[in-house]
């Protein structure tokens, strides 16, 4: 979608404070050179390790892009 900016009506404002967008920005760059295959069925330990690696990667750049995002460990009701 990023190569089709003309699809966005001019009146549209970008979504406010998106954590996904912030992390996408943090992790942008040499992504194509470092792509790794991703598996969806791994054991508990490996899942934890993968999440820890992502968190470490994001936090390494946290001061630049994430200081205003409040991370609350809560699963909220969604309806």
């Amino acid at each position, binding site marked *: 979608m990023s190569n089709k900016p003309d699809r966005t009506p001019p009146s549209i404002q970008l979504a406010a404070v998106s954590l996904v967008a912030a992390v996408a920005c943090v992790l942008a760059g040499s992504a194509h050179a470092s792509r790794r295959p*991703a598996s969806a069925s791994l054991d508990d330990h490996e899942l934890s390790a993968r999440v820890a690696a992502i968190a470490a990667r994001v936090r390494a750049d946290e001061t630049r892009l994430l200081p205003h995002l409040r991370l609350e460990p809560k699963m909220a009701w969604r309806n």
Partner: protein
Amino acid sequence: MAELALAGEGLAVRAHIAADTPRLRLLVLQPTPFCNIDCSYCYLSNRQSTARMSLQTLALACQRVFESPRLGGQLEVAWHGGEPLAVPLSWYDDAIALIAERRPASLQLSHRFQSNGVLLNEDWARFFARTQARVGLSIDGPADLHDANRRTRRGQGTHEKAMRAVRVLRDQGLPFHVITVLTERALEDADRLFAFYVDNGITEVGFNIEEIEGANARSSLADGAVEARYRTFIKRFFGLVWDAPGLLKVREFESALECLLAEEPVWDEQNSPFAIVSVAHDGTISTFSPELLGARHARFDDFAFGHVAEGGLADVEQTARFRSVSSEIRRGVEACERSCRYFRWCGGGAPANKLFETGRFDATETMHCRLTRQAVLDTVIAGIEMRSAPLAGGQTPARASCAEAMESRP
């Protein structure tokens, strides 16, 4: 233990509660069970009833909540239904004034409405602006997807009216989000849904699924083969969102990432007694999943744990029915903790979905958690891994589109 002092309506209550007890942060009010449309997947059994909450009942509900030592410093009031806009706007003028008068002075209070949009007009938009209420519209995407399930009782589609509500809110400059219920029919349409949101100025979206819950005993997603297609949909949609940073905020991805990055294990407010309090139009009090309000089940009859005219939340806590449900929900969370590798980032699943899918609160895995939690967490983890540079690479330059997205943050 922490000692809390609360004051409201001339009432001062001091009580001891554990310092780590989750605070009451969400009050779900059902001004009416009535809904002006008749969605095929609705979980409410009494949505034809035009009963309305009286202001006296609302005042009692406020009293019970505001006097509770469980109340935190912030409270969100979610006006839910039925269709909340089926109640006249003048009623809300009185209701919100009543709540404002009676709230503790220190309480930060906000309102939100979840509407099908059919009745939303400029007057409602001005009301939302005046009260700074957040608005969510239920729209299932383009007309063919939306009108397949969201119809009037006469079978007419409601998409055109829902989209008029989008235009009204946009024209008034009011922020809003959209909730889309995903059915099997939508699973091939990730790109079309993404384009629909972007083209219509919708910047925040939440995906619900067609749930097996309450009056809706079946789901088009309850099949193993469909689950694989659901995962494909989520994966595709995540890619679309990721590749256009800031254009569309999707609640599921935001929540999953927030849980993954949180340093503490996640807890689910639906599993914590009185973190959510639900009050029906007739003053019935419930807690845990708001979908339990008005629901019936063979093992528990209903989930009316109390009534605002008969006692406060502390009284509810002493009832046999509450204790039975609470105990079974706790056992379910403990079973999830023992058996599920996603527990740290989930918090134990939604009690209402456990009950209506399995017949028990102390169950573990459900279709709801496989689709809305496991599939989303897997997608976000794998999606980020595929797109991220190794930590050893040091600082990475943000793309131009990223910089623009971040500059738009308030």
